[in-house]
């Protein structure tokens, strides 16, 4: 693309900067950054002011997001951007712009909403921590980076914020950096993400090299016009970009960082690992979904893939991750780790949905999941806080009576995650299953149902063991309800967990993804304006609540059946259980599940040492061959020669004279010749 044209476009857009409504998005993006900067520079010493700055910024961002949502999300306003020149070098033109459309406004709401609640919650949870303001700096920075991903209108900008999310999550996970395990977990998370980013960056470069632009809108347009634009690297580019998502969304085989990341404070886990960072991968896949609609093509070396498309591979990886993580979750005892694996599993679900060609379903599930998973994490945090940082569920028990608000909201979240109709989780899960079934992936559909059962099982296990029964430790016995700053966010989050699906969210997303291409699912093809939504919401409640059963009964009934089976097994095994009966029943398989199928051990035993070995070899080479043989060799041989010549320097005057005379004789001889 012509650089000068782009540059002109930039300069042309500049004067209009403050006059366009979509530029509100810039404020949304920058508010958390301003908060972080303000805390760093001005109020670093005051806990109260730090929290106020941060929360005020995020809440304002949430309100603005809502305004933006009403303006652009609801209704059919086109996606609009206001570019700002960042880097122009030769044919590479990168302008920072924002995309404001249905997808990003919805995600803005999710991110700012959850972030605001988590921050309020943190005021209670982090009370008394000596680095309280630093925590809010980290949260604000993180929110800023995440909003950048959401709003990015091109690949480079997305990558930029992608990395920033990585580093701010590193800051948060390693918040208690004096704890060795936390510092290690932060490092691991960052490096695992880096592996994904490696692929992501290469994917971006391939796409740019072929299409000449990194802008999503232009790319989408070009790829729509020429589906073979990316040439033989089309599928490779798609997979490489997916590698980025693999890192952030913790998909197999880069999933190992997420459970370790639970070393961070619990609000961080809620923010990062439920609603935002891990969702970024899925969001990115949805944002660049046009990339996967091009013709499948493999370079000659990978021709054996044949007609298997990048999406098929993505779907497979998603399903595998979901299954693996669900299995691991069944045998965990740490309350946060159970939730972590559950997150992994649900992310696998979303990625599977994308792979099945249902980005709308993936986004739907992402949105609902953000709500109830944040709720679950915050609830877990409340429990941990109450039990004096005890995280083993087998040392809890009987918390139902001691912490009624936490229990109730936690139970609601569990039900939503398990997919109990008519809670939100049911509808989004149903959408995912439907996407698998509709697009001809019966195996994935079957796996999805199985995972749904397993989800119910391990979540119920958690609830039964931790909240019901009787207290198994002193800490659990003396637990008390958490302060209002912590319980109110739980209550607020319970609302969307229950009711989010009662607004026509699925249709909203379907509309976003598929109207352009003319094939529309379901009944939501009509343009929905906000006013109509409000009035329709009540009228349609009945219709919406039972829509899945009417519209596509198979996934709905199977999903509900899975729920019942999972719940039945869980209740049988864990009602009033004092010890976990599963290890006895499953033997070594349970041990495998508990030890996460030894992935960390395998990586630590094979890949990391392998890379270290290369480094060791290079270092050895540098020390002994370059530094030793070449450098010291040159210097050594010079020195040896010097030593040899030193023998001549006897210090005896007459020897010198002798040589002198010999030299003179030689010169005279030559001169006389």
């Amino acid at each position, binding site marked *: 693309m012509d650089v000068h044209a782009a540059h002109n476009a930039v300069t042309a857009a500049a004067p209009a900067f403050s006059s366009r409504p979509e530029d509100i998005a810039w404020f949304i993006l920058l508010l958390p950054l301003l908060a972080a900067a303000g805390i760093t520079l001005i109020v670093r010493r005051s806990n109260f002011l730090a929290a106020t700055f941060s929360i005020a910024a995020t809440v304002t961002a949430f309100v603005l997001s809502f305004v933006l949502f009403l303006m652009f999300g609801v209704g059919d306003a086109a996606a609009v951007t206001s570019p700002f020149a960042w880097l122009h070098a030769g044919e590479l033109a990168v302008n920072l712009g924002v995309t404001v459309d249905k997808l990003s406004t919805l995600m803005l709401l999710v991110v700012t909403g959850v972030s605001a609640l988590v921050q309020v919650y943190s005021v209670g949870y982090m009370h008394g921590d000596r680095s309280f303001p630093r925590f809010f700096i980290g949260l604000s920075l993180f929110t800023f980076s995440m909003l950048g991903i959401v709003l990015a209108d091109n690949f480079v900008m997305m990558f930029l914020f992608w990395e920033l999310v990585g580093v701010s999550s590193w800051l948060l996970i390693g918040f208690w950096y004096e704890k060795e395990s936390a510092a290690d977990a932060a490092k691991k998370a960052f490096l695992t993400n880096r592996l994904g980013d490696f692929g992501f960056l290469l994917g971006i470069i391939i796409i740019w090299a072929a299409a000449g632009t990194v802008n999503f809108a232009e790319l989408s347009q070009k790829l729509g016009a020429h589906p073979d634009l990316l040439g033989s690297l089309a599928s490779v580019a798609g997979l490489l970009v997916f590698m980025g998502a693999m890192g952030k969304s913790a998909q197999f085989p880069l999933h190992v960082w997420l459970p370790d990341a639970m070393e961070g404070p619990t609000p961080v886990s809620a923010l990062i690992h439920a609603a935002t960072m891990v969702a970024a991968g899925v969001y990115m896949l949805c944002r660049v979904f046009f990339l996967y609609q091009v013709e499948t093509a493999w370079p000659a070396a990978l021709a054996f893939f044949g007609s298997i498309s990048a999406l098929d591979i993505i779907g497979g990886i998603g399903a595998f991750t979901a299954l693996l993580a669900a299995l691991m979750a069944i045998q965990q005892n740490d309350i946060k780790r159970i939730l972590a694996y559950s997150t992994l599993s649900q992310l696998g679900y979303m990625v599977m949905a994308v792979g099945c060609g249902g980005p709308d379903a993936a986004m739907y599930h992402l949105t609902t999941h953000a709500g109830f998973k944040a709720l679950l994490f915050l609830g877990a945090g409340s429990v941990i806080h109450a039990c004096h940082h005890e995280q083993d569920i087998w040392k809890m028990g009987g918390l139902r009576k001691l912490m009624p608000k936490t229990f109730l909201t936690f139970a609601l979240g569990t039900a939503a995650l398990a997919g109990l109709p008519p809670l939100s989780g049911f509808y989004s899960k149903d959408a995912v299953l439907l996407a698998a079934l509709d697009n001809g992936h019966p195996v994935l559909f079957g796996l999805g149902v199985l995972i749904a059962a397993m989800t119910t099982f391990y979540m119920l296990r958690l609830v039964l063991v931790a909240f019901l029964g009787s207290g198994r430790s002193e800490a659990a016995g003396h637990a008390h309800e958490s302060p209002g700053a912590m319980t109110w966010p739980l209550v607020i989050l319970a609302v969307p967990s229950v009711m989010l699906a009662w607004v026509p969210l699925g249709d909203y997303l379907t509309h976003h993804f598929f109207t352009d291409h003319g094939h529309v699912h379901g009944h939501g093809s009509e343009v929905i304006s906000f006013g109509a939504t409000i009035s329709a919401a009540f009228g349609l409640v009945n219709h919406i609540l039972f829509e899945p059963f009417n519209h596509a009964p198979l996934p709905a009934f199977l999903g509900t059946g899975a729920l019942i089976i999972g719940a039945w097994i869980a209740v049988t095994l864990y009602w009033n259980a004092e010890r976990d009966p599963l290890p006895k029943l499953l033997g070594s398989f349970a041990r495998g599940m508990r030890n996460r199928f030894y992935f960390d051990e395998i990586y630590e035993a094979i890949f990391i040492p392998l890379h270290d070995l290369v480094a060791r070899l290079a270092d050895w080479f540098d020390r002994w061959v370059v530094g030793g043989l070449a450098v010291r060799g040159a210097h050594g041989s010079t020195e040896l020669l010097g030593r040899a010549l030193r023998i001549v320097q006897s210090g005896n005057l*007459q020897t010198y004279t*002798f040589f002198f*005379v*010999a030299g*003179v*004789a030689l010169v*005279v*001889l030559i001169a*006389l010749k």
Partner: protein
Amino acid sequence: MPALTDLLFYGFAGLALLFGFLCVANPLSRNPVTSAMFLVLTICSLAGLFVLLNAFFLAAVQVLVYAGAVMVLFLFVIMLLDLKEEERRKLNKVALGAGTVAVAVIAGILIRAVTSAKPAADKLVEGTTKPLGRILFTEYLLPFEILSLLLLVAMVGVILLSKKELK
């Protein structure tokens, strides 16, 4: 029948070489005093050769400066240092041999070079004081003055070096 001057030349030349040899490699005595004495004799013989070459002024200077001043200095130093040790030291045969060889080579080369050169025109020049003084104070005035400076520097240097404490 060779002229008297010719005989004188062979006489002085032979004496100079003989005394020179005895000065540096006296087989009977390795006493530096002996060497110094033979050096005086060599210089005197050379002065004779200078006279044969019509360099009367230089011959006088040679005797005055060398045989007089320089040799007195040498003798003073020899007395001052009381060098008895020389006698006890063993002669380094290897060094002597190598030295002799080197010297022989140099001598050979020089003599060959000298004899192979074309003889110069046999003109006469009087090296008396008057023409020498004239040229010295006209053409070579600057070097002459510099030389005086050199002597001054040497004097200062010697005084400094001979002070008891060298710092």
